[in-house]
């Protein structure tokens, strides 16, 4: 067993520098790597490019890096619910590359799986396809999209073992699974880190080969963005 365990978030983020490109898992605030984000704020790396489906809210998630003006460019599919984001984008301080959500996921998976690019129908005929190669297959038009290239991927899982194997919970899996192994170094933080052998090999969502460092995260806030409930009758 190749041991991927590091002792804390500081060790896990060793080598993180300004001007790098990061991938960050999560959908909205669900499944975001809270510990890594807090450490990025602390490290105060600047001019970074972040690949993340969303940009957090004003005071949580990637919103914390935005408040701190650490982000040069965001690559996302949906960036609503964030006033500071909108302000920086409209003022030109922040570069934004909006990417269809399925394309975003597959650009991660392509990087993970060694595909240089792929053809997708999403965005054909729209401004997303401007300047990109397009091509017809079986009478339908597709856009050629390149795989992402990133320095670090920060993902958050529910359980993990020392071999780096990950199990996610519910819809917190989202982009976290696809970002594993899609950057030069993948750092996984987990709610529960167990010794190798405790997880069923048949029930691993992401095998440890895709992970370089894993650590036991702490103080998860797991904030809910839209608390919707029904009444008991």
């Amino acid at each position, binding site marked *: 067993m190749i041991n991927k365990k590091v002792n804390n978030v500081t060790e896990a983020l060793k080598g993180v520098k300004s001007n790098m490109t990061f991938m960050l898992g999560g*959908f*909205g*605030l*669900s*499944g975001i790597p809270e510990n890594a984000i807090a450490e990025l704020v602390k490290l105060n790396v600047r001019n970074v490019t972040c690949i993340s*489906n969303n940009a957090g809210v004003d005071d949580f998630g990637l919103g914390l890096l935005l408040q701190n003006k650490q982000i040069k460019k965001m690559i*996302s*599919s*949906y*960036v*609503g*619910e964030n006033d500071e984001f*909108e302000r920086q*984008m409209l003022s030109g301080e922040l570069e*934004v590359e*909006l990417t*269809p*959500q*399925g*394309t*975003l*996921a*597959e650009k*991660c*998976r392509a990087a993970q799986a060694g595909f240089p690019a792929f053809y*997708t*129908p*999403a*965005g*054909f*005929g*729209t*401004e*997303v396809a401007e300047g990109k190669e397009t091509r017809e297959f079986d009478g339908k038009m597709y856009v050629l999209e390149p795989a992402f290239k990133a320095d670090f991927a920060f993902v958050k899982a*529910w359980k993990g073992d020392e071999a780096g194997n990950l199990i*996610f*919970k*519910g*819809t*917190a*899996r*989202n*982009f*976290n*699974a*696809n970002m594993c192994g899609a950057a030069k170094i993948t750092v996984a933080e987990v709610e529960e880190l167990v010794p190798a052998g405790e997880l069923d090999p048949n029930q691993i*969502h992401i095998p440890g080969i895709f992970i370089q460092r894993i650590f036991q995260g702490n103080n998860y806030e*797991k*904030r*809910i*963005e*839209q*608390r*919707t*409930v*029904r*009444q*008991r009758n």
Partner: protein
Amino acid sequence: MLDKNGIAKRIAKEVKDGYYVNLGIGIPTLVANFVRDDIEVEFQSENGVLGMGPFPFEGEEDADVINAGKQTITTLPGASFFDSATSFAMIRGKHVHLTILGAMEVAQNGDIANWKIPGKMVKGMGGAMDLVASADNIIVAMMHTNKKGESKLLKECSLPLTGVGCVTKIVTNLAVLEIKDNAFHLIERAPGVTVEEIKNATEGELIVNGDIPEMIL
């Protein structure tokens, strides 16, 4: 004239037995409330869940179980969770049978715009571009006109497109329309709405063939 729930109720009749359905944010979300309970339907949310149920009871919300609108949800027996790439494999691979989403504009050739107002509103397309580029069966749920009273059914979209030539059916507060041969074809009128009113509210080419029935809800 229909309200939002009325539009949702009419669209629910398009949901057939055995359908996997992706519901967009807004009016489309309401559709789930009106689907007949004697048919088998499963709702997919592109953030990674199939078999969505109702909202949780108070106190049972789980931050790790949400829909694409970031709302807390529950799951029904037979549900499954999966990653984002797999979710869009379902969508791109045409395994989802019906996509219901809102729009700011629809053109008579089936173009749709619903993600950006240049210089004003730029929230992003989310999964909408993948959905409209992939689905064979797309229903747009929207008001017939915007807040200024201007038609949203146009000859050509003025806003940046989400997809080209992809919309086949529209349900508005005034009517049900199909798009074919570069025109809106009027199929049903909302209760109490005249063909004339629909004509006046439709900027694009509108085809009215014979008597147009009032919709049954």
